[in-house]
C-alpha cells in the first residue's frame, strides 16, 4: 500500500526528515509516536504533498504509483487522506458544499458519475452520525468557529465521507476529553476494512486502547528509530523517550 524508502525532506534549508523508511500493508494500523519536533507532522505534510517541503532524497510508492510525482489533489484522489493536526478555518465555504465538490472531483478522477444530491445527503447523514457530529455543523463554514473537538471530529467525518485507502491521523486525539476520544475512535474503527490502512500519529497510549495498532514506531530526529508491537506504546508511556534517545546516540 505505502512504501517509504530513505526519505529526506527539508524546509527552508533545514533537514527535518533524515532517511525515513516505513512499509504499510493493506488493512494495517501503524502508530507513530515520538517527542515534540521530531518530524511526525512533517512526514504527514510531505506525504500529502505540501510544497513548502523540498524532497531531497528517497522514494514513496503508493500502490503502483510514485506518490512524490503526484499533485496534492491527485494524491487525495488516489485515496490518501490526512486528518490535520491543526485543521484550518475557511470562512464562507460551506462544509457541505466543499465536501460535495471533493466527493465529485474524486469520482470524476476515477471516471465515475457525480453522486446525486439525494445519495450525497444520505451519506452525509450516515457518516456524520458515526462521529456524532451535529447536522448543523455540516452546513456551517469549514471549521469556522468549531471547538477543538468539533474540528477533530470533522476531520474524521471527512475521512468517512471520502473513504480513502490510507488515512493519516495527525494527533486527532489531542485536546479531546475521554468521551470525544471514544467517539473519534469509534468513527475510525467503523471505517476499518481489510483494504484500508491507517497511520495514527499520537503522543498518548490512551488512544491506542481504542484504536489498536498492529505496529508502533518511534520517530526521532527525522527517522524511525524503533519499531515494535502495541506493547511498545505501553513501554513508552511508562518510561518516556530518554531511553530511546540514549539508544540512538549510543
Amino acid at each position, binding site marked *: 500500500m505505502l512504501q517509504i524508502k530513505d526519505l529526506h525532506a527539508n524546509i527552508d534549508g533545514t533537514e527535518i526528515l533524515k532517511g525515513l523508511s516505513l512499509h504499510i500493508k493493506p488493512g494495517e494500523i501503524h502508530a507513530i509516536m515520538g517527542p515534540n519536533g521530531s518530524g511526525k507532522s512533517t512526514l504527514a505534510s510531505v506525504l500529502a*504533498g505540501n510544497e513548502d517541503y523540498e524532497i531531497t532524497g528517497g522514494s514513496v510508492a503508493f500502490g503502483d504509483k510514485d506518490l512524490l510525482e503526484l499533485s496534492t*489533489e491527485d494524491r*487525495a484522489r488516489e485515496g490518501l487522506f490526512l486528518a490535520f493536526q491543526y485543521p484550518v478555518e*475557511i*470562512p*464562507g*465555504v460551506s462544509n457541505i458544499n466543499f465536501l460535495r*465538490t471533493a466527493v465529485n472531483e474524486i469520482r470524476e478522477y476515477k471516471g465515475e458519475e457525480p453522486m446525486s444530491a439525494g445519495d450525497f445527503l444520505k451519506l452525509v447523514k450516515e457518516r456524520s452520525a458515526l462521529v456524532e457530529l451535529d447536522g448543523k455543523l455540516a452546513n456551517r463554514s469549514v471549521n469556522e468557529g468549531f471547538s477543538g473537538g468539533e474540528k477533530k471530529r470533522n476531520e474524521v467525518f471527512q475521512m468517512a465521507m471520502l473513504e480513502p485507502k490510507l488515512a493519516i491521523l495527525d494527533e486527532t486525539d489531542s485536546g479531546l476529553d475521554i468521551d470525544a476520544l471514544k467517539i473519534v475512535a469509534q468513527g475510525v474503527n467503523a471505517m476499518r476494512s481489510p483494504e484500508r490502512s491507517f497511520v495514527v500519529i499520537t503522543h498518548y497510549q490512551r488512544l491506542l486502547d481504542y484504536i489498536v495498532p498492529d505496529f508502533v514506531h518511534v520517530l526521532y530526529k527525522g527517522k524511525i528509530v524503533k519499531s515494535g508491537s502495541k506493547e511498545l506504546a505501553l513501554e513508552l508511556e511508562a518510561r518516556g523517550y530518554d531511553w530511546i534517545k540514549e539508544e540512538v546516540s549510543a
Partner: protein
Amino acid sequence: MITTETVNVQDEKKSAFLGSLSSAFQGVESYTALRKSAWDTLSKFAIPGTKTEAWKYTRVGKVINQARKKSGGNTQINLPEIAIGGLRYVFVDGVFRADLSDELTWQGLNIRRTGESAENNLLGTLSNHNADWFEAVNAAFFNDGLVIDVDKHTHIDCPIHLVFFASEENTAAFSRNVISLQESSSLQVFTHYIGSQHSTFSSVVTEAFVAKNASLKIDKIQEGNEAAFHHVEWTKQERDSRFDITTVTLKSSWVRNDLNIRVAGENCHSSLTGAYLPSGKEHVDNHTMVDHMVPNCESDEKYKGIVRENATAVFNGKVFVRPDAQKTNAFQQNANIVLDDTATMFSKPELEIYADDVKCSHGSTTGQFDEEAVFYLRARGIGEVMARKLLVEAFLADVITTLSDERLQSYCTEKIQQLMHS
C-alpha cells in the same frame, strides 16, 4: 521657476480638456445657475492631482490627456445578457435610446428626461459641483439622464434597469439622474454601466432623495472594459428611511466612484457594500462618505477587493458623526486580497466622531490568499483551480449576496470567476 512651469502645464492641459468639451457639447443650456457655479469651480481650481487629498491616489491623465468628442449615440449595441424583468431604460454614449427603452410613464411612477425639463426637480441640490472639479465637469456638460419620482405610499415592485453604454472611441458622455422617493414608498434600481474596447470617458451623477419611511435599493454593476468611469451618487435620507447600495466593479480600466450619504433624519438605516477585482493595469477608486447628522441612525459599510497584477485599488471611507448624532451605530469594514507584489491597495478609513455616545467600529485588512486553505481543499481532492474559485467566492460572498436579485448574484459570480481565470 519650476512651480510656474507646472502651473502652466496644468493650465494648458485644463484649457485643452475643457476646450475640447466646450466645442463638443455646445448648446448645452438649461440649468443655467448650476452650470454657472460649475464653471466657477472649473476656473477656480486646478485639475485634481497628487496634492488634492480626495484624488491623491487616482491619476486622471487617462481621462484628460485626450481630446473628447460627443457621440451621436447611434452605435449598434447588444443589450446586456442579464435581464431582471421590470422597466429598462438605455443610454448610449449619453444619448437616450427610446428604441431600446420602455415607456416613460407608469402608475405611481413618474419618469422624465433630465434634458427635457429643469422644472420641479431637485437636480444639483445635493451634489458637490462647488468644490469637486470632476463633479463640476459633469454639471457643466451634462445633457441628459432620468428624473424618477415615486409617489407617496407606492411600492414599485418591478426593478428599474438603467443601462449606460460607453461605446464610441474618444468620446465623452455626461449624464445626471435624480431619484426621488416620496414618503413611505420603495424602489429598486439596477444601474448597469457597460464600456467597450474603445477609450471613452463617462461621468454620471445621481442624486437620490429618500423621504420619510421610504426605501431605496441601488444595485450598481460596472463593466467598463476600456472605458473610464466617473460615477457619483449623492443620497439624502429623511427619518425612518432605508438606503442600500451595492457596487460591483468588474473589468474596468479606470473607475472613480464617489458615494455620499447625508443621513438627515433619525432612525435611518444605510448600507454600502462593494466589491472590486482590478487586474492588468486597471485602477478602481471607491470614495465613500456617510454623514451622520442626527441621532439614532445606523450605517453598515463593507467593501472587499481582490487586487492583482499591476492593478491599483483605492478605498477611502469617511464617516462623520456630528455632535448631535448621539446613539449612532456606524460599522465599516474594508478587506483586501492583494495577489501580486506589483499590485497596490490604498485603504484609508476616516472616522470623524464628534458625539460621545456612539458605537463606531472600522477595520481594514490587506492580505494574501490563504495558501493553507488552498492546501486543505486540495488535500481533499479538490483541484487547485476549483479550490481558488471556492475561496474567491467565499471571500466576496457577503458582498454579492447583497445584490437584490438572484439573477444578478449569479451573473456577478460567474463574471468574477471568468475574470479570475483569465
